[in-house]
């Protein structure tokens, strides 16, 4: 066996190994889908899908079992909605300010600092929500329950703010200066140029960022697990305890659920719903970015 041939065999083997590693990533997705699908299918063989998706009472762990997931869904939407009310306007305004107004020295210092917000572990945000924000809100809103959707919602918004501002700012800055200058030449103020010219031009990136932010909020776990409560209820009142889909999964995981029981399967059914929602949102975000992208020569 010549050295040449050995080398060629080695190269061939290595190439195959590398290929397998790459396709392994598909295995991960397949694994997620399979695990979720398997347990969800078992779940749905016992609980009709209409009851799951449209039922309004969620008591799967109790004697009198009901499997309507809507209370968890409204809990998630409530907390995420509040988060978006904080993150989207503030994030967008920050992006516009940094890209259109701020001198580059300010931008260079502020941007990394905001990135720090995104790097803080979520359990720290949970601590902040429960032990700082909730008492603060309680002094303003008497009657606010210790567990509620408002506090974690606001804190989630703060956590997601850098995501929105960073991605939007990138999108805004990629709009060529010629457009801005044309607007200024016509006498527009910076606000008018920003809102009526630059923002629409950057629509694809900005909208994609917003949708991504929603996806992030829906999938967030620890902040709501610590501060929102564990009471599934169908309500839009942000001042009372609720339970989100993610917090439910944590609640059951902290207890004991033997494999193969219907209770065990509920976390996968809820997980499946969560996965599909975030997956669809991520795809939507990608589509927005591609579809509305303006190519500037």
């Amino acid at each position, binding site marked *: 066996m010549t050295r040449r041939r050995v080398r060629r065999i080695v190269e061939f083997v290595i190439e195959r190994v590398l290929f397998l590693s790459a396709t392994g990533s598909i295995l991960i997705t397949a694994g997620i889908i399979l695990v979720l699908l398997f347990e969800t299918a078992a779940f749905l063989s016992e609980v009709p899908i209409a009851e799951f998706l449209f039922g309004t*009472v969620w*008591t799967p*762990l*109790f*004697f*009198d079992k*009901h499997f309507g997931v809507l209370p968890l869904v409204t809990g998630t939407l409530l907390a995420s909605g509040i988060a978006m009310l904080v993150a989207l306007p503030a994030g967008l305004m920050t992006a516009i300010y940094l890209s259109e107004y701020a001198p580059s020295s300010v931008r260079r210092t502020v941007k990394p600092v905001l990135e720090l917000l995104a790097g803080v572990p979520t359990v720290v945000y949970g601590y902040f929500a*429960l032990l700082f924000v*909730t008492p603060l809100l*309680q002094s303003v809103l008497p*009657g606010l*329950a*210790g*567990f509620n959707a408002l506090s974690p919602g606001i804190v989630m918004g703060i956590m997601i703010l850098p995501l929105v501002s960073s991605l939007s700012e990138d999108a805004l800055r990629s709009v060529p200066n010629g457009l801005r200058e044309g607007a200024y030449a016509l006498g527009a103020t910076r606000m008018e140029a920003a809102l009526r010219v630059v923002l629409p031009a950057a629509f694809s990136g900005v909208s994609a960022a917003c949708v991504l932010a929603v996806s992030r909020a829906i999938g967030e776990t620890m902040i709501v697990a610590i501060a929102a*409560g*564990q*009471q*599934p*209820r169908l309500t839009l009142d942000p001042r*009372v*305890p609720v339970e989100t889909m993610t917090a439910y999964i944590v*609640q059951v995981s*902290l*207890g*004991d*659920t*033997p494999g193969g029981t219907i209770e065990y399967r509920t976390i996968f059914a809820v997980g499946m719903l969560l996965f599909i929602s975030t997956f669809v949102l991520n795809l939507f975000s990608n589509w927005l970015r591609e579809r509305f992208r303006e190519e500037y020569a």
Partner: protein
Amino acid sequence: MIRALRVWIVVLPVLVGAAACGGGGTTESGAPAAPQVITADGSSTVAPVTEAVAEEFQRANPGTRVTVGTSGTGGGFQKFCRDETDISDASRPITPGEVEACAKTGVTYIEIPVAYDGLAVVVNPKNTWAASMTVAELKTLWEPAAQGKVTRWNQIRSGWPDREIHLFGAGVDSGTFDYFTEAIVGKSKASRGDYTSSEDDNVIVQGVGGDENALGYFGFAYYEQNHDKLKLVAVDDGDDANGAGPVAPSPDTVKNGTYRPLSRPIFIYAKVKALERPEVKSFIDFYLNQGIPLVREVGYIPLTDQEYMMVRNRFSARTTGSMFEGVDSHSQLTLEQRLTR
């Protein structure tokens, strides 16, 4: 330097893999050889005691390791009867169904009462109206029929404020849950489902402590540890024979039996097979000797000295099976009477 680092990228995983497979003398199931971990799981009511004992035990015997999970009494028994844990913490006796499950897998156990507990019903300190409640009122509040219907304080007793009630209580795997529902509603596990239920009593404490309109229940020790955040509700069982009028839980009322129906013994169940390991046996011995002052420190009520001696004898004799087979745990026989049977 980079050459060396590149080599490490390949070598390190191999080393780790080798260490994984070879290290610690792993068996087929992956459990390492001695010193093995002593695993306890189950009731979050009993957990503070077991945790305290575990901590002191590990301090006195370096090298031993004890983990304490809080999956709830029911969850703990499920793991116990699947032969996954050595000790099951329980805030109620083992049920016939669980006895059968253990029999099927061949798990034999020794039932060891370790303390008395009073189930405390608590409200927020700012709650000025609910100083006491009758068992009947608690039943209208917690029974399954109340779900979605009984949501305001003035529905329990007229004259109370027209405000929402926020309920916090034990999770369904919890012995506290089984016990409370049996004593108050009359049937174990029969409860409304629209409340914040948690296996972790700390969540209930936080919930009630942070909400003026809240009401919750858990083991007395959790009240004692957090009495500055909570207010006790005295319970009136309507039976003047054991204490007239509403009675609040306290070490005395639990011990002398006037705090009814919410007084109960709490247990640990030790797997007989695990007792072959010297560390497990010495842990239980430690529990029943040096553990007694810890019971009070944690907030529970110790058994009488006579009862502890009988429990120790029961353990040395390796008496298996449950003293409560087929009987309600809060029936009239005292522990002492049971232990002598």
